[in-house]
């Protein structure tokens, strides 16, 4: 039988649609990357739409393990700022999948355009809180970028795409590593964004390691020493140098600092020096020069919000006075008004 171009196009699309059994009916594709594809699906059992993530059917065993591991990581992280996993299973063709909440919204990069600094900083603090929660459970995201933060329809902030996360074991002990899947394929960059529906997009980790150009082109994630995991501009130098397994909480602090840098730039106005200093400390070249944790970074941003001195910036006397004025402006104005009235009365009596 001779097949037309239209038929082949149809078959190409059809054959890649997962068969997740009677419970989940795939409605459409949200995003696609090297690791797999995320679909919008109907959960007939509970009567709701969900996001279903499945690996590409031609993926190797390493990617299969990564998907399963990502589901396990997410299952450990029950937090309002981290997308929840509802179910895991196996497709009719043997591929593993997991089901998660379907978030309708935009990513932080899109959301930031034209927003005020105050709102963006509040969003940023929510991101920090989610990351700090993960850190408290020994999970390092390793690919924090504005595109991996979703803003839902109702303003909820969700950190997504934990596919290259690292689960720390006991300090100094073994760690379960997202890059540990031999020959695993990393997500392949652009064109894999869940722009409309939020969750389920693939991230764009460059996963090349000291690998060949072919491996880079194919988005292949090499393992062991020499791994590079992250997105240029957001990955810490220790990761860019090929030491993905050396990345700890401070690697995520670097990513958060880079996000903060972007948000401050997006707000349009020049960043106040204390905030610029916070960015500089968070994105310091050496991990020891950064904040020790996402919580510490968030605390410094909150200090700025509360007009308190931030740890990252040593202010001069004038700045200290200005900050004091800004923090106590009503009281100072009241005192000034009182002083003016007193002086006026004294002068009047003197006359």
């Amino acid at each position, binding site marked *: *039988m*001779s*097949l*037309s*171009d*239209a*038929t*082949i*196009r*149809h*078959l*190409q699309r*059809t*054959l*890649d*649609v997962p*068969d997740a059994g009677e419970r989940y009916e795939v409605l459409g594709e949200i995003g696609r990357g090297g690791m797999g594809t995320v679909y919008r699906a109907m959960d007939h059992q509970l009567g709701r739409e969900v996001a279903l993530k499945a690996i*590409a*059917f*031609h*993926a*190797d065993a390493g990617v299969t393990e990564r998907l399963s591991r990502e589901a396990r990581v997410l299952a450990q992280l029950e937090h309002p700022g981290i997308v929840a996993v509802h179910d895991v299973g196996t497709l*009719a*063709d043997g591929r593993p999948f997991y089901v998660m909440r379907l978030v309708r919204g935009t990513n932080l990069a899109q959301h930031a355009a034209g927003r005020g600094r105050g709102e963006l900083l509040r969003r940023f603090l929510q991101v920090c809180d989610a990351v700090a929660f993960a850190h408290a459970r020994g999970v390092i995201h390793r690919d924090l970028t504005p595109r991996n933060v979703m803003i839902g329809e109702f303003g909820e902030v969700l950190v997504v795409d934990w596919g290259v996360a690292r689960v720390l074991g006991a300090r100094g002990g073994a760690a379960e590593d997202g890059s540990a899947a031999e020959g695993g394929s990393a997500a392949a960059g652009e064109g894999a964004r869940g722009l409309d529906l939020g969750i389920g997009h693939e991230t764009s980790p460059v996963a090349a390691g000291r690998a060949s150009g072919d491996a880079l082109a*194919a988005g292949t994630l090499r393992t062991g020493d020499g791994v590079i995991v992250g997105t240029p501009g957001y990955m810490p130098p220790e990761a860019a140098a090929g030491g993905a397994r050396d990345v700890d909480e401070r690697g995520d602090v670097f990513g958060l600092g880079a996000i903060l840098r972007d948000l401050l730039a997006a707000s349009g106005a020049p960043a106040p020096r204390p905030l610029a200093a916070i960015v500089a400390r968070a994105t310091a070249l050496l991990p020891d020069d950064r904040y020790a944790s996402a919580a510490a970074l968030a605390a410094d941003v909150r200090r700025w919000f509360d007009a308190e001195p931030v740890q990252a910036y040593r202010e001069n006397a004038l700045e200290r006075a200005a900050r004091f004025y800004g923090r106590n402006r009503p009281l100072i104005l009241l005192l000034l008004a009182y002083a003016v009235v007193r002086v006026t009365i004294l002068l009047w009596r003197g006359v």
Partner: protein
Amino acid sequence: MPLFPETHYSIVSALRSDDAATRARAAEAVARVYRDPIIAVLRHRWQLERADAEDLAHDFLAHAFERDWLQRYDRSKGRFRTFLRSCLMAFASTAHEGATRLKRGGGATHLSFDAALHAPATDAEVEAVFEREWVRSVFERSLEGLKQECEAGGRQLTYDVFVAYDIEGADAAERPNYAQLASRFAIPATQVTNYLNWARRALRRHVLDTLRALTASDEEFRDEARALLGVEVG
């Protein structure tokens, strides 16, 4: 007889077998999958009439197998498909030169490459044609495998429903819906869903088996699978 006897059978490896019968079977399989893409390239690049292109394709495949060209394939240097295309281009260029010489010398030739002089195709065009026809050939061979499986397993109705919806329906101005198919084949609508799901899974299996057989390594297999389902035809 199925096109590929074993799930993990590799034609490319079999071409280098010491056993003549194995080599012959592999050669036959290569010819079946690549014949149409080869003809398409010959027609596009040298503007050959269909009959001429078929003759030249036959000559090329015969030469390739008789002279063990394909055994020289080195997997470290790229895809088997690319290697085959390179061999074809070299062979056809030589044939073209030969035909031109004969013509200049007043001799007769059964091939006419005249049109190629007026509208030579670029390498990129030739590659695109070869890729497109290769995808078509893989799907057609896989569909053939599905049909045989359905016939052998008493699933003719499943195959018919699949063809009506996913093959003929793709070309139709208006694809029939499940209810119409259920009525046409006198089965419940839920059964249409089941049949389609089964047939799609089976066809996917055949496609992957075909690709696996046509590739020499896991890496090449994955690349081909990605290319097949990641690049649209037409």
